[in-house]
């Protein structure tokens, strides 16, 4: 019987927080990004990254939001974003979809301490992850690391013993491998 197979109230709420990525299209209009940021501040205080990037449409930007949260919280945030008039095509990249359905990349620039003696060792670690040396001087190397968040985390972890002088991470940008399904397209207003 249906009523015996469906979950009780609250059964889903215990799901563990995980790294979540949401991608959306936002109109390139004054105040839109502010509105998204304001929503994140109010509804997802744990959000970690917000990336606004040029996209295929001259009137829109693609926005990528990274945050820690339970799946239920992530779905909530998607629905809240869909209600913003100037935001459309909001999609949640679940961890599974992140591996199969979408590509997520982030750029980091890191200035890491090294001397001529251990420079080779640092470059070897960088090469393991496809990172490049952009600048080298007597005291440090500036690395360009591109990858998913876990790749960048790994490089930073492995190079920590050298000494991190400065770091800038862009936050993720994401794209579907194939065109998004129609059902992922959210209407911008309700009077369709």
């Amino acid at each position: 019987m249906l009523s015996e197979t469906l979950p009780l109230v609250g059964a889903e709420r215990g799901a563990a927080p995980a790294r979540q990525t949401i991608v959306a299209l936002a109109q390139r209009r004054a105040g839109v990004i502010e509105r998204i940021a304001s929503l994140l501040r109010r509804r997802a205080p744990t959000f970690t990254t917000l990336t606004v990037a040029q996209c295929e449409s001259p009137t829109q930007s693609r926005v990528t939001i990274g945050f820690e949260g339970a799946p239920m919280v992530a779905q909530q945030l998607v629905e809240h974003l869909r209600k913003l008039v100037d935001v459309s095509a909001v999609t949640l990249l679940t961890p599974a979809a992140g591996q199969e359905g979408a590509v997520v990349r982030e750029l980091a620039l890191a200035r890491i301490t090294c001397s001529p003696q251990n420079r080779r060792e640092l470059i070897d670690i960088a090469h393991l992850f496809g990172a490049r040396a952009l600048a080298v001087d007597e005291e440090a190397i500036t690395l360009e690391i591109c990858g998913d968040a876990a790749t960048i985390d790994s490089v930073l972890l492995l190079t920590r013993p050298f000494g991190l002088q400065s770091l800038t991470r862009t936050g993720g940008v994401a794209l579907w491998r194939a065109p998004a399904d129609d059902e992922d397209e959210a209407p911008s207003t309700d009077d369709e």
Partner: protein
Amino acid sequence: MVSATSTVTHERDRASAPDASRRRSAATISPANPAANPTEATTAERTSQRQTGARIICDALEQEGVEVLFGYPGGTIMPFYDALATANLRHVLVRHEQGAAHAADGYARASGKVGVCVATSGPGATNLVTGLATAFADSIPVVAITGQVARHLIGTDAFQETDIIGITQPITKHSVLVRSVEELADCIHQAFAIARSGRPGPVLLDIPKDVQQATTDAPPPFTPRQPARRPSATATDAFATAIGEAATLIDTAQRPLILAGHGVLQAKAGEALVAFAERSGVPVVTTLLGLSAIPESHPLALGMPGMHGLAEINHAIHHADLLIAVGMRFDDRVTGDIPRFAPDARIIHIDIDPSEMGKVLAPTVPVVADARAALEALTPRIAHRDHSDWRTRIAEWSAETTKSQPTVAAPSPATETDADRSPTPPEILAAIRQATGGRAVLITDVGQHQMWAARFYGYEHFNSHITSGGLGTMGFALPAAMGAAFARPDAPIWVVAGDGGIQMNIQELATIAEVGAPIKIAIVNNGYLGMVRQWQEFFYQRNYSETRITGPDYVKLGEAYGVPGFQVTRADQVADVVAAAMAVDGPAIIDFVIEREENVFPMVPPGKPNVDMIHHAPSAPTTATPATPAAAPRPASGGRHAE
């Protein structure tokens, strides 16, 4: 573009005192402004095909079917007010912009249409903020039009410049700074469409002064958008599946309850709710904002749940195995401690806003739809049930609590006669109901009287209760009633407010007197900020810190504004004075002086589950000495409590 009026004034003009000879009844709204006096600008534009932004605003408002707007002029909105003089729009000059926002809100709640308020930039715009937040919290369609400094001055800290878009962003559904006169008409029509579509809400349009003055070719003829409430959502497979699952749950439930909220009123789903309840046999609980969704005399109508809800309803929710939540959002005042709310129940959650699904409680079956569409789809799919055992059990809880617990606001002992004692809140509400035949639209403020009005009036007519539920805005009732009076000229309009809240927007008495709106104002006066005092009594050892409040002599105050005033200090006066106020042609104000330390029972202490209701004040502390005397002697006569 240089303004013809830019040097006239930068100060907001103050209105002159109300002129009794100019009073009109709100019931006979004259559509055109009688003081129409075309200016040079408006005459000039008539001879050309080009229109000013100000004229475009007026035309767009007329096209949207706006009957009345509430506003206050000032420097940056003067071009609009100039054009308004010849527009076919009724404008009500409020005495404070907060009153304009609440009046637009009250109009929207009472009419189901979009309410409109207007203010100038800077202080005018910021004064709208509480009203917009109130409308946002309760999902009320309001369009707010604010003037803004001219485009070349934006960002220069110009006189009366404020970033009202930034300030109101979290409390509006949408907001737009109109950047050119060419996009103005579209922006206005879009604002109305957004305000009323889906889950309604307030929309703010910030219009720079030079955009109002600029001219452009007349916009193309306007074709009204259908006020769609997401009709296509009900045509989807997902909707059909959800309705099927919901019907199965309803048919197999043993102890089901309907929780009807504001969405039922907004979807005009009163009849659909009654039909659904009668077929399913499921009793109906109504949230504070859901009151009047079902006649309270209906055998399936139970009343209000939650913090000040009826004991049997909280027991029923605790033991329910299915909650059918319709157009409500599991506010914390309804749920109490969430893990202990309805621990045995599955939930069918019907709401037009998908972001409500799982926000507080994960529903077993989410149904994202308009309340009426969902109820109408469900009713033919479910079996006829009776649930007489379950309803008997709820009735037993009701009988038990009535027997063992004192009635809220218990009448005084039989040894006292009605002439010896103060009126009780239930008596006041019963008298209003009797005098109006239950046809009144009751607009309540926030506090103890709000809970008493929720509990003791007995709403029979659909959409006859208006209050600030989500934000809990003191000062809401009086200005909101102005809006309601314009929306419902057919119904008696009653404000029920406390002596704290009434003083927060008391200036609108001037507006009410000027337009002659037949609003009857009942002040439930205990000389305290009563709800806070009650919390202090229960949870802060009777430390009545800053909750005593004095007020004016409301009879004299009414007189000063030209509003007949009455005072009631004895129970035996209540019915006669209510009748006398009803007999007044126009507004009237009644000061009901009640017992000073009357409490609202039952009450769920904050953080507790709803079944842990308290029915008595906790015992007085033995050690702590109250900062102020707990039981101040009542004034011997006059009932005023200025100390």
